């Protein structure tokens, strides 16, 4: 069992609130990813869980045990650091066994645990090398191995892939996913890369300015963001936001007139909106179709096109100067300055009120964290 319960957790540095009263439940075996922009408090939250920072107020429980003020090593957690923090003067074997040796564990038991971890992480042939003789990915695996030998209840990862190159990041992402299934462990993972969050997590926690914006599965966040911040943060390229005004709104739907020209009727519950209210219309690049200019009321000018093989990303400008990104087919060949039309898939479009809150679909009200 490894359930983590966080209640009203706060952290201040002098007079600045970094973590502003967080409530969070993490269940046994879950892979939870904390994601958010730089300075949102995700690393601080992880360090509070690890015990590397002192809690200002609130509680952290591991199963039924209050660990808020417990020393880091007594929490039964293991942390993998962004810089790996391997001991450069020790071999891989020594790095993995060192803490156990100092704890007075039995020599045979230590060797068994190290060999077991080395086998899981395919480090067997590297045990006698020092960290300087290892690649970035190998160092990362040693850092994970150092955690595995301790058999912790929860693994904590602080941006562990940020020092690796793009190809290695993909490979390590797959290895971490495999490791999670193999160890059946609870893992908490911090990243600013939402691709990592989407691909690894069972549950994503989106943080912003020291509080939680939304908690949910990756697809939940993608399809049902509770506000414009989450909508803009999740998804690559990011969602396009266009300003508009409500023409008509009721439980059955909302009619929106965009500042850049077109008018759309959305299948959303507009009962809390009023006619004339300012709103933000959101649509993802993959939910927009590029058409001929005369085939759509939504006319834009092509700016830059990026050909990525399977996809082409078109950066376009609306008539009022608003910019958005559209995902077209790999063979799409638009020219700079060309006028084209856009047809959004209205079933997948989003609407946000003046406060940035999502307008829910009928019968499915969006819940903030």
């Amino acid at each position: 069992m490894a359930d983590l319960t966080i209640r009203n957790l706060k952290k201040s540095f002098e007079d600045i609130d970094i973590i502003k009263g967080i409530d969070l439940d993490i269940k046994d075996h879950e892979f939870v990813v904390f994601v958010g922009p730089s300075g949102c408090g995700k690393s601080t939250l992880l360090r509070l869980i690890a015990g590397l920072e002192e809690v200002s107020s609130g509680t952290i429980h591991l199963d039924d045990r209050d660990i808020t003020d417990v020393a880091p090593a007594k929490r039964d957690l293991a942390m993998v650091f962004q810089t790996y923090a391997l001991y450069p003067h020790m071999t891989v074997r020594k790095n993995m066994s060192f803490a156990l040796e100092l704890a007075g564990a039995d020599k045979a038991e230590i060797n068994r645990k190290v060999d077991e971890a080395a086998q899981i992480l395919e480090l067997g042939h590297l045990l006698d090398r020092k960290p300087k003789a290892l690649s970035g990915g190998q160092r990362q695996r040693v850092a994970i191995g150092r955690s595995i030998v301790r058999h912790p209840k929860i693994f904590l990862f602080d941006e562990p892939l940020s020092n690796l190159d793009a190809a290695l990041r993909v490979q390590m992402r797959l290895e971490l996913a495999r490791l999670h299934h193999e160890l059946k462990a609870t893992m908490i993972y911090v990243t600013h890369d939402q691709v990592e969050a989407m691909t690894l997590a069972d549950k994503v926690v989106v943080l912003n300015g020291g509080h939680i914006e939304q908690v949910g599965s990756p697809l939940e966040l993608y399809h049902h963001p509770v506000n414009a911040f989450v909508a803009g943060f999740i998804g690559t390229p990011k969602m396009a936001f266009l300003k508009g005004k409500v023409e008509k709104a009721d439980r059955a739907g909302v009619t929106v007139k965009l500042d850049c020209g077109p008018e759309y009727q959305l299948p959303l519950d507009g009962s809390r909106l009023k006619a004339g209210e300012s709103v933000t219309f959101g649509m993802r690049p993959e939910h927009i179709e590029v058409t001929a200019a005369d085939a759509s009321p939504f006319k834009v000018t092509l700016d830059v096109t990026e050909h990525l093989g399977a996809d082409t990303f078109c950066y376009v400008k609306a008539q009022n100067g608003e910019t958005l990104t559209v995902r077209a087919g790999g063979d799409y060949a638009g020219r700079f300055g060309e006028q084209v039309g856009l047809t959004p898939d209205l079933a997948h479009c989003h609407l946000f009120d003046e406060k940035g809150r999502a307008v829910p679909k009928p019968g499915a009200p969006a819940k903030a964290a």
Partner: protein
Amino acid sequence: MIEFQWDWDFAWEVLPLLLDACKITLQATVLGSLLAIVIGLLLALLRRSKWKAVRYSAYWWMEFVRSTPLLVQIYFLYYVAPEWGLNLSPMVTGVLALGMHYGAYLSEVFRSGIDGVDKGQWEASIALNLSPYHTYRDVILPQALRAMIPATGNYIIAMFKETPQLSAITLLEMLQLAKIMGSENFRYLEPFTLVGLIYLVLSLIASAGIRQAERRFPKEGFTLS
């Protein structure tokens, strides 16, 4: 009139005596260095204490020692300390004064060496439940040592060249003996030149040793256990 012509016979006559006195100089340097390293390390650790009072006390002690001349400290220990019942021999006084004085300088060397170790190493040690003793002994100091070698070596060489100040409290080290021989024979050229050469040769050997130690020392540190 004092003669300024080199006398080989006199030089060969005084050299063994000067080399004998050199043992006193080296003894004071070696013991002073060991004490300075202990004091320096202690001050460096105290300056990293979580208690403000301890940090400030260590800092001001270090500043006080560094801001007063070594000779004043030597005189104080030799002539003033007995009034408080602390009677020390010239050698013990000299070693104590050199150790205290250079310990204050070395504390800064050690502190910067320790501060140079990546912050993650501390946090990993905390997370892995290493005691402060094991964190310093097995993780931090082995990595910090390489950065400390050059400056530590330079201070030890400087200390070696400061030992003549101990003659002020009647310690018969090399330079004091050369002065006595010069005044007895009215020949200063040979003893002082030889003393200068002995200092030069030993300093060059020490410098080469330090450079060699730095080169041979593994970049990533070494493991004690």
